[in-house]
């Protein structure tokens, strides 16, 4: 029987902590390190950067590789990541450069390409899932379109001996399926195995989510050593998966934490779709084996979806946010009055009256959606948010909040403003034969 494979989940989002990945390499006894860095809209921003002549891969790639590559190479740990962003080949070139600088010129670095379907989508003008209408009906130019591709190009690169595989838009769980398929020799029709791989990837893709991050609640849900929170390790034997962590790091892997992550961002648990397989976790069981060791078993695989999901990025104007605080008796009431006053002024202003805008009272009802202001709430913060087609218009609206200090309720202080450009994504679907993923070694 093939020996179990150990994969470390070394990152869960773009700017995640680097220390835990280093801990996984030094103390985790892992065979592979999976680094997931690419949220839905991150890639659209990178596509834009690439078109304007800046690097299309994730900005801190050099720093991460300088930190992780030497200890990985020393222990023969191979890295699979979507850090390639909009330019996997460029990213692979940079990783080769770092490798040579560190005296690791023997490392083989592969790039997975073909997820960029921008030109194809522009030509096809497909119907978008959210609107039910064609892309062109948006009246906004398409900035980028990327298809979610599966694990098998990455697997082929690993079969050919790649030490680092850099992809762009691949399904997150595919980053775990690839090393597992490489190790166990799984093929596209091994559906239950691919479901186990998908579950493995799902448990690793959010890194600290599986070791007690986003779980801990002081004094109630206790997680030791949160400041040194480690990241998860999946130990896969081909039948089931054991989630664990290093003994050197903080954190907690118990049945509660693991089940929280298993359900994270899930719709119908029997119908979790990825490019490689449709996973059903309805019969999955979680069993605590010992300290920081939980076994998950029972994931079932069903045929993969016929079409590949594509995310289309378009411009979504400028978002402006302004805030000001109130303290003392009736602070919440004064923040509410501030909101009512600014809204009346903006609704009278023809330049912005029809724009989407929203007013919140932070500390009362901004996230606790059913909250109501009371006079004994002594600390409250007014917040307004507006979306405008251009920066000047957004700034114009924010200036109305700025005037609250001398034209609004008593004692407003701590004004802040922020303006940022935004993108939004729409989903559409392409027949598989229209998307041609590929991989190559880069020197």
């Amino acid at each position: 029987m093939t020996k179990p494979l150990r994969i470390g989940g070394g990152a869960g989002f773009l700017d995640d902590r680097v220390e835990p990945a280093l801990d996984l390499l030094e103390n985790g006894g892992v065979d592979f390190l999976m680094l997931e860095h690419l949220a839905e809209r991150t890639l659209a921003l990178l596509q834009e950067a690439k078109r304007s002549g800046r690097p299309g891969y994730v900005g801190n790639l050099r720093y991460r590789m300088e930190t992780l590559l030497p200890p990985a190479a020393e222990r023969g740990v191979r890295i699979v990541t979507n850090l390639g962003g909009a330019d996997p080949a460029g990213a692979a070139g940079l990783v080769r450069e770092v490798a040579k600088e560190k005296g690791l010129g023997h490392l083989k670095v592969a790039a997975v390409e073909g997820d960029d379907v921008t030109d194809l989508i522009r030509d096809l003008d497909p119907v978008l899932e959210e609107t039910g209408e064609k892309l062109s009906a948006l009246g906004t130019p398409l900035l980028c379109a990327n298809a979610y591709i599966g694990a098998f190009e990455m697997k082929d690169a690993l079969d050919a001996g790649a030490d680092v595989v850099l992809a762009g838009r691949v399904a997150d769980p595919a980053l775990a399926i690839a090393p597992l398929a490489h190790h166990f020799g799984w093929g596209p029709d091994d559906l239950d195995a691919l479901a186990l791989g998908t579950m493995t990837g799902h448990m690793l893709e959010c890194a600290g989510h599986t070791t007690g991050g986003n779980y801990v609640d002081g004094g109630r849900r206790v997680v030791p050593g949160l400041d040194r929170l480690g990241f998860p390790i999946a130990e896969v034997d081909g039948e089931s998966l054991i989630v664990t962590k290093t003994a050197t790091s903080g954190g907690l892997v118990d049945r509660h934490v693991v089940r929280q992550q298993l359900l994270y961002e899930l719709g119908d648990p029997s119908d979790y779709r990825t490019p490689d397989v449709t996973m059903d976790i309805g019969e999955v069981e979680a069993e605590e084996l010992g300290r920081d060791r939980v076994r998950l078993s029972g994931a079932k695989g069903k045929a993969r979806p016929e079409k590949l999901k594509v995310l289309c990025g378009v411009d979504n104007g400028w978002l402006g946010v302004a805030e000001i605080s109130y303290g003392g008796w009736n602070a919440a009431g004064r923040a509410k009055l501030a909101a009512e006053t600014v809204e009346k002024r903006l609704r009278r202003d023809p330049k912005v009256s029809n724009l989407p805008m929203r007013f919140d009272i932070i500390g009362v009802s901004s996230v606790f959606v059913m909250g109501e202001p009371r006079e004994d709430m002594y600390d409250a913060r007014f917040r307004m948010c507006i979306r405008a087609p251009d920066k000047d218009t957004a700034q114009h609206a924010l200036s109305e909040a700025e005037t609250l200090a001398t034209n609004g309720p008593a004692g407003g202080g701590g004004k802040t403003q922020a303006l940022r450009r935004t993108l939004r994504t729409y989903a559409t679907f392409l027949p598989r034969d229209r998307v041609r993923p590929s991989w190559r070694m880069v020197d």
Partner: protein
Amino acid sequence: MPKVLLNAIAHGRAGDKGNRSNIGLIPYRDEDWNLIATQVTAEAVKRYFAKVVKGPVVRHDLPKLKAFNFVMDEALEGGVNDALAVDAHGKSRASILLCMEVEVPEGHWSLTGAGAAD
């Protein structure tokens, strides 16, 4: 029967996909799964979040895992793409659901300091 906050017998995590929000809800003790199944129905959660959830709420039961997955549509004012809300992802929604009251039998276990009845 005494009431406690759901927070005293269960925990949860919220996620998002566009304008859809999901909350995984898990009792601390497996034996409370039935109590939650009876009281924290899809209808009850829809009523609880009536102010912000405009679409249907579906509860998926996972009796083997002793967990529930609530899927709420049109729940995030457009979601991370469009919402002007402070928490456009709705990450705070699980903690808010945990402030829902449930009835428990006299003397029933609940987590200390987590919203149990006095």
